[in-house]
């Protein structure tokens, strides 16, 4: 009887986890492998398995549009993450000043997170459109020289997407950092106060350094939002003007499905995975090292 229980105790978790594990193996890693195989073929409309080595990758590296998409992703993710962290931290510090109606303000700042990127994108597109939104409003109010036409300027359009994305996500970062602030060891802070340190200095030297892990998880979460961004750009600019705001995810979709270049699209998918790995592998490495 006891041995049976022992057996169950030992194997039950594994049995329960097996189906999800299997599904993950097939539908994540299996399909990554399949995608890699596809990227080595000549597939166009449908998958075919005549192999052509790394031809698609060479073509990808030759494509100016791909590098533009990568550059956009780089600009977008770096600015998106830094602005979210900076504004999120600022908001969190303000809210942490034991203000009245804290719950009310917290909700207001967190609310954009509840919207879908499509809704955010559509609203910001209206607001930033020179003929409908901000620019027209200010001109109608009498500031006839006011221009804010980034949305229709191929050089600047990518920054309007950053504005919308930061608006949506900085409240979320605020909540994460606020939780971090609440966990700060106040004995040290009080000691510093007694020693006569100013509040900004206390924040800079004592509190913010303690938030390291929170910053780290925020960056990982924001990074994956940035890499996945697709609908926001579709709603705001559809990749335009021209294709100046195209991102790798849109590039992949366009080539795989609209242009019938399945293998080429697959190769861009592999490059995106590679890009994610550059960030995730060090993270995993640190996490695993901690446990050992």
């Amino acid at each position, binding site marked *: 009887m006891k041995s049976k229980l022992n057996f169950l105790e030992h194997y039950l978790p594994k049995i329960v986890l097996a189906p999800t594990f299997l599904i993950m193996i097939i539908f994540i890693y299996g399909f990554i492998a399949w995608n890699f195989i596809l990227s080595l073929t000549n597939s166009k*409309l449908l998958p075919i398995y005549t192999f052509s080595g790394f031809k698609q990758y060479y073509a990808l590296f030759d494509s100016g549009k791909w590098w533009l998409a990568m550059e956009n992703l780089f600009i977008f993710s770096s600015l998106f993450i830094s602005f979210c962290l900076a504004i999120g931290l600022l908001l969190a510090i303000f809210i942490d000043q034991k203000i009245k109606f804290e719950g009310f303000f917290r909700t207001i700042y967190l609310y954009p997170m509840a919207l879908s990127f499509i809704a955010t994108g559509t609203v910001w597109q209206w607001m930033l459109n020179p003929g409908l939104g901000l620019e027209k409003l200010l001109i109608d109010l009498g500031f006839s020289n006011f221009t804010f036409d980034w949305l229709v300027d191929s050089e600047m359009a990518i920054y309007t997407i950053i504005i919308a994305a930061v608006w949506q996500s900085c409240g979320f970062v605020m909540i994460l950092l606020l939780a971090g602030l609440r966990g700060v060891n106040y004995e040290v802070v009080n000691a510093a106060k007694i020693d006569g340190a100013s509040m900004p200095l206390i924040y800079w030297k004592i509190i913010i350094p303690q938030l390291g892990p929170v910053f780290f998880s925020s960056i990982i979460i924001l990074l994956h939002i940035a890499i996945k961004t697709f609908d926001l750009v579709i709603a705001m600019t559809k990749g335009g003007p021209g294709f100046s705001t195209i991102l790798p995810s849109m590039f992949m979709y366009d080539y795989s499905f609209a242009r019938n270049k399945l293998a080429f699209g697959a190769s861009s998918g592999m490059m995106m995975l590679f890009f994610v790995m550059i960030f995730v592998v060090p993270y995993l490495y640190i996490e695993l090292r901690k446990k050992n």
Partner: protein
Amino acid sequence: MRNFKSMITALFLFSVLSLHSAEIEVLHWWTSGGEAKSVGALKTMLEKSGHKWKDSSIAGGNGVNAMTVLKSRAVAGNPPAAAQIKGPSIQEWAELGFLANLNKVAKANKWDKVLPKRFADHMKYKGKYVAVPVNVHRINWMWVNPAVFKKAGAKIPTTWKEFEVAAKKIKKAGFIPVAAGGQPWQEATVFETIVLGVGGAKFYKKALVDLDMKALKSKTMKKAFDTLRMVKSYTDKNAPGRDWNLATAMVYKGEAAMQFMGDWAKGEFKVAGKKIGVDYLAVDAPQTAGAYLYNIDSFAMFKQKSNAKTKAQNKLAQLVLSDKFQTIFNNRKGSVPVKLGVSKMPFDDIALRSMDALNSAAYTKELLPSMAHQMSVNDAIKGAIVDVVTEFYNSKMSSSKAVKKLASSVKAEM
């Protein structure tokens, strides 16, 4: 016993009936109100003949979503009976061995006679009909608000030179000369209209249908790019991202004077309650009077496993090219019948002129497939051309650089 007998009879009758009728699935992306109603006519006609229509309409992405579904269904071995596929994609699907042979229906209904040869060729793979055309849209129209022209004291242009003169006057009078939608396909539509106008039918065919490298790099192509830049200078700066129907609205609201767009723009004017010839005009885009840049929608027929389904599929193909459906559908959708010799009775003035232009262009050699609307080259090459056009349009690229880039990106996709 009697009950049993009647049951047997009923079963027998049922099986006989089901031999002749079958349910076939039709995949398409005609999902907007007017379009859905237009295609609904086909459903009614098919069901009258005893077959069943299983509607599989997939919205979004200009058909890209529908194509994605179609691909996954085809790979899984379960394609629909008919799917809305157009242009060179028909041959790509046929090459993969998915499409059914419609020659029997075609022969019985004399498709070779009633379809202009150029249209018929789009529907064939190695001499066999594999698809059936539904309608023709003419691309090279210019939609005009005559009131704006009058206020500006400008003349409706027939050449690009006249266009520039008129546009200048209109701009001076405080109107937007050209209502543009800044989306790649719309920019490409204007571009191909210009290529046809500047270079003529022969040049258009060489460059955007046969993809002749010399033509792509030629001075004429450079001039086409310069003309595109000139046209852009007469659009407003809020154009990027604008949908085509909003651009059309600018014309009928009297904010803008002209729009370059296919004949589906007519629907927008009609919905707004505007009158042809009074509130708006449709004229040939500059220098393209005799030519007909076409965009054909079609159904490709997929091989079916059961005879009954094949029969229903053949019936569908026959119905699509029947005079009755051609009239109802095209009248609703704003296109014209793909078949020659359909009664002109119920069509409006613009459609009639489109039909006349089609008739005459079918005899001269100025019946040309649209590049921007996936009729002349495959989607990969089309994408490459549109990329260059839209990059040129939205940057300060010089026309000589654009021409070089056009040739090299087309070559890379061939």
